[in-house]
């Protein structure tokens, strides 16, 4: 037996306060890319009680993802969009979770992201990151965009920061640790960067837009 919607909501209200929880519950966020960043951002936002989450990724869960991404070995081979939606529904059964299995590009972004006031860029490829950021800032100057760059390796977690680049654009990471530069992506440091992104999203929803 899982708790009722009202029981879960009032537990969140007790933690966060009525007004903040109302804002979280009324918000809608789209997460683009469901790897080490996106899967961790999604889990944090679902646990905080964000009302509507939309998940986008074209890829399937691979054994190489399990070192840092929020998937289980019994989900190997499933689309990440489906597997993560299943997990989030266990975490937050009353969150409105939707997903799309699609590769985002310049031509489909204007349609596929139109409904969401807050967008998280959680890709792993540098050119894809730049493509999403450029397309979103050009087509949707009024939307809030929280992106990430630089979280590979095992450098100090203290070098990962959130910067406000423009009025509606925030960038998390150390800005330089490339995945090709030696050590790959390691669970805790990627999660630190994802937590920066999720924290910034929740701050924006709360009305605080400084990094």
């Amino acid at each position: 037996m899982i708790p009722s919607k009202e029981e879960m909501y009032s537990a969140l209200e007790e933690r966060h306060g009525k007004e903040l929880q109302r804002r979280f519950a009324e918000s809608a966020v789209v997460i683009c890319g469901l790897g080490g960043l996106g899967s961790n951002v999604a889990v944090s936002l679902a646990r905080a009680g964000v009302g509507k989450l939309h998940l986008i990724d074209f890829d399937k869960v691979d054994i190489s993802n399990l070192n840092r991404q929020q998937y289980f070995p019994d989900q190997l081979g499933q689309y990440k969009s489906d597997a993560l939606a299943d997990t989030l529904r266990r975490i937050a059964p009353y969150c409105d979770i939707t997903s799309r299995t699609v590769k985002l590009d310049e031509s489909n972004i204007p349609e596929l992201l139109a409904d969401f006031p807050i967008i998280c860029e959680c890709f792993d490829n540098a050119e894809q990151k730049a493509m999403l950021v450029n397309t979103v800032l050009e087509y949707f100057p009024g939307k809030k965009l929280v992106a990430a760059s630089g979280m590979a390796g095992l450098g100090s977690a203290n070098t990962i920061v959130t910067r406000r680049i423009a009025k509606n654009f925030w960038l998390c990471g150390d800005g330089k640790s490339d995945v090709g530069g030696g050590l790959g992506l390691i669970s805790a440091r990627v999660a630190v960067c994802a937590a920066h992104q999720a924290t910034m999203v929740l701050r924006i929803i709360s009305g605080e837009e400084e990094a």
Partner: protein
Amino acid sequence: MVKLNGEQRELSGKTVTEILNENGYDPKRVAVELNLEIVPKSQYDSMILKDGDSVEVVSFVGGG
């Protein structure tokens, strides 16, 4: 003088493409803000910087 990523530089009269090339940026991995507004990629060749402009080049690295 043009401010590039916080540093005053003699860059007025140059295009965004020239600035990216001369400073070692890969145009496929950047987003460019001019006076806090995004510069569309289609304008990198034609957008000419002038005195007092502030340019922020965000360069992305891989990993996620």
